């Protein structure tokens, strides 16, 4: 049954009850259809009132009995209380990890380690919807993405690295790959479970044990993962999870008793973590911020490019380190492309992350929403032209309209700083050389996109771009077999693929 238009007003992606003129419905004609709410059921997940730390195979309280709340950013309501790890808890987790590495995991034949990882992958597949719903509730990302992107990639990641555990000798010809020992891992809130998988799977495959600190706004999926470890009968201490504030993460990476540090997060914090390892022999990988250029040449298939641009910057509310936040469009197609882009923006549905039709969910936290707001205000103040579709936002929760800036100069803050939100800055170029110059004019170097129908130009751009991942006629694709990581101040080391293993081994002579 067609819902009454006035009742569903909150869901309409445009203002008024008239369709955009170019929808082919006749100028200003009333819209004949509307999206009905399509909420994903929350029944599939049971959120406990309290979650403890996961140390040495057991759920335990913090040593000082402290708790903090994890909030659903779409409702601003607390989902659960989470034990707040102390430095003593972190030290205890490191000792448990060391013990497990020395006495059990490090001595286990690779083919046995593999089977544990395969088990984990299978359990994640079996419980996939449960994880997807919890992830969307805790982080604000649309269920469409957690269900179809995050969680499948998580399971695949464990699957992929499981198979490496007993084949390390083939990954490093001429060398013997030995585990580093205990890995200290600190992950961000934008892909809470996926980043956990990127960190834990290769570490375990190579024979390391881990102490992982999830982000303080998104600890729940990591703590549900602890349950998976228990279900898989993973030996105690191989995986330890210690939620807490950033000081806890800094304590973890600074510990003299860890051998490896892996961090994904902002460049500012990445530098602090690199400093925390200065003068030591700890292995370090950093996956930091980005300000990716998405470059559209005049011969590109513009409709496809529009989809890629939208996916590039509005995927996961733009809270993506490799987001295509700078659109570089060749001057001759600027007008046509921007028109198409504005039309497309008018159909983006912002709202309840658990609604299966939602394209853009909630911003992860109030702090992040404030940061996005500040940078967008700076964009307006510095003279760029802002466009936002006239969609309604929910009354509660941290939401932000998809935003497009034209008339942007390279010196504007919105063109230089990582916004980590659904905000696109459009710049133009005339020649391929100018496109390269502008694309590389940033201290970051994580990713880039190129849109053109000319193959040789794609490869020429690939060669010139200072970026660790280049998407040609696509954007924001990920796969466990595909190495990911940055150039320049976007960090070093790779995650994914055979290269991702390298970050978790020391190579000795045969």
């Amino acid at each position, binding site marked *: 049954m067609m819902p009454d238009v006035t009742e569903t007003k909150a869901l309409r992606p445009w203002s008024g009850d008239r369709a955009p003129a170019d929808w082919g419905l006749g100028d200003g004609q009333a819209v004949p259809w509307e999206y009905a709410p399509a909420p994903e059921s929350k029944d599939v997940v049971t959120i406990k009132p309290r979650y403890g730390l996961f140390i040495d195979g057991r759920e335990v309280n913090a040593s000082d009995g402290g708790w903090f709340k994890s909030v659903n950013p779409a409702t601003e309501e607390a989902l659960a209380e989470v034990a707040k790890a102390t430095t003593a808890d972190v030290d205890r987790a490191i000792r448990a990890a060391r013990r497990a590495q020395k006495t059990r995991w490090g001595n286990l034949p690779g083919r046995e380690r593999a089977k544990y990882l395969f088990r984990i992958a299978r359990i994640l597949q079996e419980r996939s919807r449960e994880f997807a719903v919890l992830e969307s509730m805790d982080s604000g990302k649309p269920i469409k993405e957690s269900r179809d992107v995050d969680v499948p990639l998580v399971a695949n990641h464990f699957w992929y690295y499981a198979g490496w555990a007993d084949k390390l000798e083939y990954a490093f010809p001429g060398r013997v790959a030995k585990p580093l020992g205990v890995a200290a891992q600190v992950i961000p809130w934008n892909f809470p479970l996926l980043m956990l998988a990127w960190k834990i799977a290769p570490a375990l495959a190579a024979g390391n044990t881990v102490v992982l600190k999830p982000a303080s706004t998104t600890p729940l999926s990591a703590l549900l993962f602890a349950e998976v470890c228990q279900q898989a009968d993973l030996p105690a201490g191989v995986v330890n999870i210690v939620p807490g504030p950033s000081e806890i993460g800094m304590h973890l990476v600074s510990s003299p008793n860890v051998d490896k540090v892996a961090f994904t997060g902002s460049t500012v914090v990445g*530098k602090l973590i690199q400093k925390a390892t200065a003068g030591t*022999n700890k292995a370090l990988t950093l996956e930091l911020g980005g300000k990716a250029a998405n470059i559209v040449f005049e011969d590109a298939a513009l409709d496809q490019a529009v989809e890629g641009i939208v996916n590039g910057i509005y995927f996961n509310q733009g809270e993506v380190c490799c987001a295509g936040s700078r659109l570089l469009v060749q001057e001759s197609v600027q007008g046509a492309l921007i028109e198409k882009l504005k039309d497309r923006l008018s159909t983006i549905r912002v709202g309840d992350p658990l609604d299966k039709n939602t394209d853009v969910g909630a911003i992860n936290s109030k702090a992040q929403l404030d940061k996005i707001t500040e940078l967008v205000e700076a964009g307006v103040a510095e003279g760029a032209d802002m466009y936002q579709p006239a969609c309604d936002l929910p009354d509660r929760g941290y939401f932000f309209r998809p935003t497009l800036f034209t008339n942007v100069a390279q010196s504007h803050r919105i063109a230089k700083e990582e916004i980590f939100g659904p905000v696109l800055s459009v710049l133009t170029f005339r020649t391929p050389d100018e496109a390269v110059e502008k694309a590389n004019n940033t201290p970051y170097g994580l990713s880039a996109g190129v849109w053109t129908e000319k193959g040789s130009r794609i490869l020429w751009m690939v060669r010139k771009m200072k970026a660790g*991942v280049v998407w040609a006629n696509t954007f924001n694709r990920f796969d466990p*077999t595909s190495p*990911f990581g940055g150039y*320049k*101040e976007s960090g070093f080391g790779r995650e994914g*693929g055979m290269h991702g293993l390298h970050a978790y081994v020391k190579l000795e002579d045969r």
Partner: protein
Amino acid sequence: MTRTASNGRKPPTAGGRVEVRKTYKLYLGGQFPRSESGRSYVVAATDGTPLANAVRASRKDLRDAVRAARGAFPGWAERTAMNRGQVLYRVAELMEGRRDQFVNEVAQAEGIRDDRAREVVNRAIDRWVWYAGWADKIAQVLGSSNPVASDFFNFTIPEPTGVVGVVAPEVSSLLGLVSRLAPPLVAGNTVVVLASESRPLPAITLTEVLATSDVPGGVVNVLTGRKRELVPVLAAHVDVDALDVWGVPDDLRKDVELLAADSVMRIARRPAGVTDARFDWLDDRASERPEWIAAYLEMKTVWHPIGV
């Protein structure tokens, strides 16, 4: 200055002829300047016998060297891999022709006997050959085609990181230097070297080989001087992409790495537990490592759709 080191070697003087001594200078952007600071320091043999005055490079010289290296980077990186390999192989060819000079200088600098110095020089020449051969192979060994679970062709290729600062080993004046210099070079990086502070002369003679080989000016830049003065400037330079801290004095390493972190500089360290003084550079297995090349490579992954 007597220039007679503990091994009893004297410079060749035939028939009472007065020897023409060499002025040891910096190697910067393909030129041999003195320091803009006009400073020098006395280099002595291991027994204290003065050997020569070396240039004491300034911070300004170092910044000039980084600029030269940055300028030379695109050209060197975009050479074909085979061409880079041939250019570096030619360094070995030219060293072979000046072997006696190197033997003489290494013996004086390191206070070792001639036969030992000959072995060291031979090995330095062979090391160029070993690393040069990697130029057109490293991408095949370290690159990959990735079987993604979707309709994309996905591949990963190594690319040079950029400008690399090499703080050369302090003890092994030539073989250690070559072993640490060749890996970043063969990958297509350009390099700023801080030579051994106490034994800088063989490094300068190596630059004379580089200048007359086909290595383009600016691809290798060599400074002599005080590490405590220069290393922090190198580490804090935002246009240096990677830093080899092998030859950094142990008590300085932490401070140097703190400075390097400000630009997320890549750091190449000695393996844990290895000291500069005791490392055996004659051990081919220990010193010829593709991992040392990989330390100065960035992996670039490319996605391309498959469709009609």
